[in-house]
């Protein structure tokens, strides 16, 4: 059976797994973005807090995904929970780092004139600093999403949702003709999601970034 034939036959499976994969990654990205931006906003003005946050979120990213899934398995059980948490932890560093870089990169003259015009701390943050840091932040989120899509596939070892299931099933059937198709379809599925996510992010980036700073 050819690969394309296989894909057509398994179209329902592909769609279902794809949605599951996209949902868990999408949720992780949203949570990581909210948490990461919050952490960045809270720490970017204090050197020690900043360094500590970066070191901590950095060490999450250093822990191999395979190991992290297993470590989260005991407290969270099988299924989507350990996968979601692991993906959030992996997603934090790029978001936090880019938030901090973006906020610190805002021209001090702009902040001073905002201050001089009587914008209070919150108004400065929401109207000036975050919009200006946004292109940097969203670039971080965009790249993180791609990496998380790949990592999510490994989540299948703890029965996580998504295309990983196809890859591990293929692995279990090494030597059978269907094995290659299974693994390939899993990889291709992730790649399709990657392209889709990237296109969505491109659109979001265009729509949420002021023309004045593109």
């Amino acid at each position: 059976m050819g690969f394309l034939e296989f894909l057509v036959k398994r179209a329902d499976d592909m769609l279902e797994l794809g949605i599951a994969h996209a949902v868990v990654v999408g949720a992780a990205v949203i949570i990581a973005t909210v948490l990461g931006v919050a952490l960045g906003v809270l720490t970017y003005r204090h050197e020690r807090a900043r360094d500590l946050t970066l070191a901590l979120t950095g060490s999450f990213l250093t822990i191999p995904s395979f190991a992290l899934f297993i470590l989260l398995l005991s407290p969270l059980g099988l299924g989507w929970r350990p996968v979601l948490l692991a993906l959030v932890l992996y997603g934090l560093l790029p978001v936090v780092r880019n938030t901090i870089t973006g906020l610190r990169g805002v021209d001090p003259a702009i902040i001073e004139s905002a201050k001089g015009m009587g914008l209070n701390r919150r108004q400065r943050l929401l109207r000036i600093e975050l919009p200006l840091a946004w292109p940097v932040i969203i670039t971080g989120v965009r790249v993180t999403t791609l990496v998380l899509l790949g990592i999510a596939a490994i989540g299948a070892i703890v029965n996580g949702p998504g295309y990983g299931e196809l890859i591990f099933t293929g692995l279990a059937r090494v030597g059978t003709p269907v094995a290659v198709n299974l693994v390939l379809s899993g990889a291709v599925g992730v790649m399709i999601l990657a392209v889709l996510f990237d296109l969505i992010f491109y659109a979001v980036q265009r729509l949420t970034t002021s023309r004045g700073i593109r």
Partner: protein
Amino acid sequence: MSAPSSEPRTDSGVVAQTPSAAHRRTLMGYLTVPVILGLVCLGLFIYVQSRDLDSIEQRSLNVGSITEALQEHIVLTAVSTLVTLIIAVPLGVLLTRPLTRRVRPFIIGVLTILQAVPTIAILVLLAVAFLFLGFQAAIVGLVLYAIIPVLLNTMVGLEQVDANVLEAGRGMGLSKMQVLRRLELPLAVPVILAGVRTALVINVGTATLVTYINAGGLGDIIVAGLSTNRVLVQIVGAALTAVLALLIDYIAGIAEDFLRPKGL
């Protein structure tokens, strides 16, 4: 944006371990990580000692098999990192020559998206499609995956070398090769070092998965625990992997601090 970001990686789309915040580490700073990791190992050791292990657990959790797995893991990481660098750095240099200026954004875009290819898919594909198993297959798989971030890192690093410096160099009569050797590469050393660190961290992580293609490593212990449903074995394997990864990253970080040219 009006303000150029100080970190070159933020716009490039390379997600890698780069706590450049650790420029001025104090002695305390240097000690924190090894102390924490040591305590984790100690706790793990005491806990395992305090338990009565059944025969299955004993088969995985003994000094001999753990040392062997650890050794395999380190060798896999070291060799794959070396090969990654030998390929990625020259390729990065090549891809940043003026010749490729017009296709460069395209190349970077494609490489960025390719980061989404699951590592496990690459490894498993080698096994199921080519029946390519064992150490060599593992190295191929690891290198294939790690090459992208390191390549991106190198390209971005070389691109961000100040164009004025290069022009000044050319103006002083240095040839193109001399500019590359004496200015561009030294100025890009921090970026290449960061690439080394990235490669190490990625490879030490991916090496956990090569157990699936019979290439050993700490993944052996985890998978043994999984297939026999022994939680303790799983956790010991996973914790050791995490400790090793953090330790390698830590050492790479220190090396980065010391090898970085003065003044950069």
